[in-house]
């Protein structure tokens, strides 16, 4: 059973096709990553899923029925462009946003206080939002998206602008929600995060879905003949080797494609022979980053 099915969504703005016949499915209890470079169509797709934009064609099915207003009450949304009522007090703003979702009363207030404490904001609950730092405002915004205990969580670029400590806190809460069997959809252009958090993905480029499915299956499919290497020393001699198809550097690590699966052993031997200190050698593995670059980088290297 799928929690959400996105079927043939298309959206034009004037003559620009922002989303082109996008279809994908989000399984129950999954963390779903919608990944793609900036301007690929992630936010437009999410806005259509949220019923903020009406699609020009296609539909979004929620557990068998087409989404409408009732979906909005069940969803917590953290938009990419953050914003709150600057003149309102932190607690008032949180309670107002929860009220719009139909949640009122002492229980919500108690829960808001708990979240504020967790994010180290307990003492700021009566401060005006404009008096908070940008990072703290972002934390309040995140609390607003989870406060009404929604079944669906949609986070658009949730980690942008957060420091490492709060990034980890956010990750913890996302995983907590996953354990509570909530459906989590996050869009990001940061492949490392997607790889660590998501179990299903859809990759979008120029408005089209170019890859979708379970992350482990996708990786298996792309990992053949691929070696992830972390090593010290000059490995440029690999370019002249008979069995290496290509070498790509990702800063700390290299992605090496060999001509045949059996060549991985020979590659390791060659590295040792050349006095390279191998820190990590993972055959038949590929990072999401590499897959993304391979697929989306073909016509444009600006990732």
């Amino acid at each position, binding site marked *: 059973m799928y929690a959400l099915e996105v079927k043939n969504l298309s959206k034009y703005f*004037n003559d620009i096709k922002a989303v082109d016949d996008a279809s994908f499915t989000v399984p129950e209890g999954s963390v779903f990553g919608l990944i793609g470079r900036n301007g690929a169509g992630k936010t437009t797709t999410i*806005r259509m899923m*949220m*019923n*903020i*934009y*009406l*699609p*020009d064609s296609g539909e979004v099915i929620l557990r068998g029925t087409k989404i409408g*207003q009732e979906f*909005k*009450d069940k*969803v917590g*949304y953290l*938009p990419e*462009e*953050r*914003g*709150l*009522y*600057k*003149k*309102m007090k932190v607690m008032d703003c949180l309670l*107002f*946003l929860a*009220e*719009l*979702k*139909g949640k009122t009363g002492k229980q919500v207030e108690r829960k808001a206080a708990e979240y504020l404490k967790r994010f180290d904001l307990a003492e700021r609950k009566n401060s005006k939002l404009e008096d908070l730092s940008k990072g703290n405002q972002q934390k309040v*915004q995140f609390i*607003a998206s989870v406060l009404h205990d929604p079944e669906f969580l*949609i986070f658009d670029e949730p980690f942008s602008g957060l420091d490492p400590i709060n990034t980890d806190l956010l990750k913890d809460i996302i995983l907590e929600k996953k354990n509570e069997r909530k459906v989590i959809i996050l869009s990001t252009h940061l492949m490392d995060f997607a790889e660590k958090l998501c179990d299903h993905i859809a990759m979008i480029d120029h408005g089209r879905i170019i890859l979708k499915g379970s992350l482990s299956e996708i990786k298996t499919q792309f990992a053949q003949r691929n070696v992830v290497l972390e090593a010290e020393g000059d490995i440029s001699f690999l370019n002249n080797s008979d069995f290496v198809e290509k070498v790509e550097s990702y800063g700390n690590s290299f992605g090496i494609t060999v001509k045949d699966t059996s060549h991985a052993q020979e590659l390791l031997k060659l590295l040792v022979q050349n006095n390279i200190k191998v820190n990590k050698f993972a055959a038949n593995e590929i990072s999401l980053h590499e897959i993304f670059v391979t697929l989306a980088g073909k016509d444009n290297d600006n990732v």
Partner: protein
Amino acid sequence: MFNRRTISIIKRELKVRLFSRTFIIMTLLIPLFMFGILALQTYLIHYSGGENAFLIVAAESQSVLDNVQTELLNTPKDSDGNIEFMFEQLSNEKLDMRLANVRNEILEEKITGLIFIPDQALENKKAEYFSKNPNNNVLLNKLRPSINKVLNDMYFAGKKLSREELDYAKNNVDVTGFRVSADKEIQEEGVGNTVLSFLFTFLLYMSLLFTGQMTMSSVIEEKSSRIVEVLLSSVSSRELMTGKIIGTSITSLAQMAIWLSPLIVLISTTWFALPPEFTLKLSMWHLIFFLLNYFIALITFLGLFATVGSIFDNPQDAQSGIWPIMMLIIIPFFIAIGMQTNPENQIARIASFVPFASLIVMPARITLVDIPLIQLVLSIIINIATMIFVFIIAGKIYRVGILITGKKPKWSEVVKWFKYNY
């Protein structure tokens, strides 16, 4: 349209606007500002500059000169500016020479000017004034009655008319107005209702502009602070717009009711006795009509202001978008003010049934003349239809505009938004 979510938004608007310090301040400030503007206007129109003046009064004949001198020196001095006179007899031929004489002193402003009354004036009432600033009407207005009186008296002195006959000729006709209305006996008309219609018009004009601007900037704020996307993940754009406009309208209506409360006390009790010339021909129905009309006006115009707010993402750009709406308020305002000299003029009659204008002209008209019930109902129907039309159009632009940020959109693009399937 009215559901839990809309009500939550209305509640927030009321919390932010009605139960705030700003509300109390504005409720006090707007009338102060209004009367301040009126007082300033009156002061500026009557401001003379308060300077002292030194005038040479010259006449061809000694008798004219003597009479003018007596008259001018007997005129009570007023507070602003002291005028000193120098009287001299001067023949027409010597005028040029005398002017050449004092030319430098006039240029240096040691002498304010020279007024010359030739003998001819006794026939054609034409005098001449030579000054660096010959358009100083304040000064001339002080002199004109005295000179006029002298010329009149001297002219009629030879005509063998009695003082009474003269006074009669000088008096203007005084017309007392009586209002003929359907249900009451004929009553003498005071200036009370004219003052009231002026007050209604001014209040309507000021508060529509104030509230409109306020609504517009609050929409711009939601748009530019990007909270709108969070809100739209919970409510539809129509619910958001409706909640905002109704919330602001209720606040503004409450404010208007506070301003009108002295009137309600005045007409429903006998605690205050007004002098007869200020008596108000006003019933509770007038006030109810006024408030109902104001509520419709608020929703209509706030819909327009909110739409403009949604198109632009900063107040500077929005200024270019509000002038058409300002015109919809300012032109009827002038019609309503102009109407006070004749409430039944053709433009006012028509304007009180024209969409938008009706909202401002009709309240002023009903305070000045009796309007048949059928016409009132018609104007309300027209206004409600306009309101619904505005709401539909506004909603279509609002839902697109509110999510578009970046460069200032062209009007042609805004027109395209109608076709968008948002």
